[in-house]
């Protein structure tokens, strides 16, 4: 009986967690998973509810093996470990350390841009219609914005290894979940020295040019003015 109760508790804990993520905790879910995959968590919740119902209505098996709980409790507790780690996740963010850890550099310290697919000319991206250009939009439609005034919202990084004292304006792009997040960045040549700290969210406004070196072309925003900005509801790019 106790073993069955423990299994039911594990299932119930995951049901509560998943149900909260797809209802009240959507902003938290967006920091872990692509928002379009919410249905996956909803689907998981339904299956867990079915499992809980079956688990509560079927016969107990401890009578057949009284030592079951003694040997099986670690396996049950292990299933709860991810929920324990929800505590730090609540306030944690992928930051500049993650950015540098997931980036590649050339021998002289230049950050190598990740691959971003192009789209047909004239095809707008959702966040470009609001007057603000996404970092991925600057790569995808660099021809369209070249020498134009652009405005991006991103996080700031002072990277001493970069040439010419540029700043890095970065965000993460996810495909499925935060574990596959890849850094996307543009370089910034600020008008005046910035005292904004690493990882602070900023709005950068300036003129777009391209910085080419070692066969890589990176968008560079020159004459940039920087202002502090609050964290967007969806911190990732998609």
């Amino acid at each position, binding site marked *: 009986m106790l073993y069955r109760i423990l299994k039911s508790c594990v299932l119930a804990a995951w049901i509560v967690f998943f149900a909260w993520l797809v209802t009240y905790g959507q902003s938290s879910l967006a920091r872990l998973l692509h928002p379009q995959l919410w249905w996956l968590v909803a689907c998981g919740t339904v299956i867990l509810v079915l499992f809980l119902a079956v688990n509560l209505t079927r016969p107990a098996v401890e009578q057949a093996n009284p030592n079951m709980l003694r040997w*099986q409790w670690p396996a049950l507790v292990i299933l709860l470990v991810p929920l324990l780690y929800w505590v730090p996740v609540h306030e944690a963010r992928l930051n500049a350390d993650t950015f540098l850890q997931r980036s590649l550099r050339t021998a002289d310290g230049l950050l190598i841009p990740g691959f971003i697919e192009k789209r047909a000319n004239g095809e707008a991206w959702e966040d470009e219609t609001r007057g603000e250009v996404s970092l991925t939009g600057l790569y995808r439609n660099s021809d369209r914005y070249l020498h134009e005034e652009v405005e991006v919202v991103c996080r700031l990084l002072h990277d001493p290894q970069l040439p010419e004292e540029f700043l890095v304006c970065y965000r993460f792009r996810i495909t499925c979940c935060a574990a596959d997040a890849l850094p996307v960045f543009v370089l910034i040549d600020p008008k005046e020295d910035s005292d904004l700290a690493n990882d602070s969210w900023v709005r950068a406004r300036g003129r777009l040019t391209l910085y080419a070196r070692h066969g890589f072309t990176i968008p560079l925003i020159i004459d940039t003015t920087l202002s502090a900005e609050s964290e967007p509801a969806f911190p990732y790019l998609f």
Partner: protein
Amino acid sequence: MYQPVPASSQAPGLSQALAWLVGILFLTVSVLLFFLGRTPAWHGLVNNIAINFLAIMVEALPFMLIGALAGGLIEVFVPVAWIEKMFHRHRTRSVLLAGTMGLFFPVCECAIIPVVRRLLGKGIPLAAALTFLLAGPIVNVIVAFSTAVAYNYDWVVVAVRLGSGYCIAVCIGLLLGRWFNRDNGILPEWRNSGAASCGHQSCAHDRNNSGALADRVRHALGHACDDFFSVGFYLVIGAFIAALVRSITPMDIFSHLLANPEQAIVLMMIMAMLLNLCSEADAFIAASFRGVLPGSAQMAFMVLGPMLDVKLLLMYFSVFRKRLIIALSLSVFIVVLLWMIGLQTFFPALLL
């Protein structure tokens, strides 16, 4: 009437004492790390591990639940006679067929183990099961689409990825099928097909296919729930290791170690095993190495990852014997390595 799985099969593959020790060790490390994360020195690293760990779990667990549910439905609704008709007439043909099953049954690697367990319980030949296990997470339409998007609709990359996955899976299925069979390759509870294929002596649903639908669905859910508890903790341990590796391994070290394409292939294969990425997302990581690594190394990453990673390796213990797991791991690694070196040697311009 349906009875839950007995205790002896709850931690199969590993002996009960060893599974208990591994569990205690994991709990100690994970809880210790959690509390270390409360100190300033460890705060950043543990936060990073926590994000990756939760992200992998929130993505992978629903897939595993879907896989467990599919396995339960297979257990109750797919008759053994159908399996025998499809897979027992011709060994090579059954392996070739199993390699394409992912096209009709698109599952990622998190979902495939519960499905394969149930198919083995139903009597599918070991060679065909291994082929489906390896090919299923690659040769499917979702993976084809995500690869196409990641590689800017370069259909050559898609074709090479799916073709490589299929050929390698078939080769290994045929190869291991010669040396291993149901008796020496899989755990006893999944070995005997037929009336008690689920391992529950009292179930006998193959003899009672005419039962009420509601009872049979409840029965299928019972099996699926058992699968969740017997495979789920392997998934948690694998996801934790993957998050740890993802959080402490700088990608930049790879760019300094890539003296030649063969070295690049090996390093990308090791990275694929350690990162445990979903087969539906790994193409985007591989594509980020375009212009940095040869195409064969990117392809090695995309082909090996869905076949062999830490999380899968742990989950293999829930169905296969240790000897088969070792043979499977070695043969997958070696065949993928040789295949990619062949691609690099004979078709160097194919994947630029």
